[in-house]
């Protein structure tokens, strides 16, 4: 029997959060953490968490699993269980709405700041804006981000200044548009990032890289943004 400890908090009933212990029979199978949560929810329907695609694409079920942020649906127990114990908490740093569900408004507000859409004021061509294979290759490792917030909520700089520091996820997206050959707002985008908080609160500790369930590297993207700022401002 697997010992599972889950963070519980229902603000309508509980005065403060607490950890609730469960025992789960996984029949020795190396199932995913989400499967354990689903099984527990059949026993206790009040257990609350977000989930959707159950295959690491939608980014809904980001939780803190035994101390490390990750997607419950693609994290097998063999990676997450330590000493026959599985501890599941909400992603750290953002307000908890209930149990494992967090309020991601601040995360999305930072995403919105970087203008996550193509800006191109040139007249649209008859069919489409073309890219060479090399130009397209620059977007690899950037466009795959699913906005699960595992990285930003693992970042101490984001914990301390979620209203000012854009965070690894937003900055990865910012570089995705800075690197896009079809985008013409590079200077404007860079000008919006050159303050002591938006980009430069990143001190390169690479927690984001360690937790990203898609294997992306926000620290590297932030380094590229910094290089672009240096090139344009010196």
């Amino acid at each position, binding site marked *: 029997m697997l010992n599972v400890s889950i963070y519980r908090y229902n603000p309508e009933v509980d005065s403060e959060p607490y950890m609730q212990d469960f025992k789960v029979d996984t029949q020795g199978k190396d199932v995913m953490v989400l499967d354990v949560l689903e099984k527990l929810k059949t026993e206790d329907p009040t257990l609350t968490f977000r989930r959707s695609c159950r295959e690491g694409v939608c980014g809904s079920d980001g939780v803190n699993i035994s101390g490390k942020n990750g997607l419950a649906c693609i994290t097998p127990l063999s990676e997450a269980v330590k000493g026959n114990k599985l501890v599941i908490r909400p992603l750290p740093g953002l307000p908890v709405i209930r149990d494992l569900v967090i309020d991601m408004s601040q995360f999305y507000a930072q995403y919105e700041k970087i203008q996550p859409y193509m800006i191109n004021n040139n007249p649209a061509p008859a069919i489409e804006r073309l890219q060479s294979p090399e130009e397209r290759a620059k977007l690899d490792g950037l466009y795959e981000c699913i906005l699960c917030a595992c990285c930003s909520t693992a970042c101490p700089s984001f914990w301390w200044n979620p209203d000012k520091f854009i965070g690894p996820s937003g900055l990865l997206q910012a570089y995705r548009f800075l690197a896009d050959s079809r985008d013409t707002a590079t200077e404007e985008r860079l000008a919006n990032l050159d*303050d002591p908080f938006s980009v*430069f609160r990143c001190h390169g500790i690479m927690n984001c890289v360690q937790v990203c369930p898609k294997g992306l590297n926000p620290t590297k993207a932030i380094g590229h943004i910094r290089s672009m700022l240096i090139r344009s401002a010196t």
Partner: protein
Amino acid sequence: MVTTVTSLGRSGLSDWMIQRISAWVMTAYLVFIVAYFIGNPDLSYGQWAELNSSLPMRMFSLITILSIAAHAWIGMWCVLTDYITVRLIGPKATAIRIFFQLGMIAITLLYVIWAIDILWGI
């Protein structure tokens, strides 16, 4: 774009570059001083005073002191804006943070002026 008025260079990039360049200056100074001590095991006060009263050495020391001041200002400003915030310690945070920031700036400037007085007083 987040507005700041108490950071050293007002721009993130400027602060970042000052932080890196000042780190190199401090490293160079440290390497030089350690090498000088190793190269002169029987160092006398006269030799030491002569080294420090030469204009190039005074310049090197002054640039290092200014680097330490800038480096400390940027570093401490980061620490203060991380931990002394309304989000973490409540509405009094702004007043406390400004108090510490101004105090830090004052101490830094005092040390720089004192160091210049020492360097040119040898």
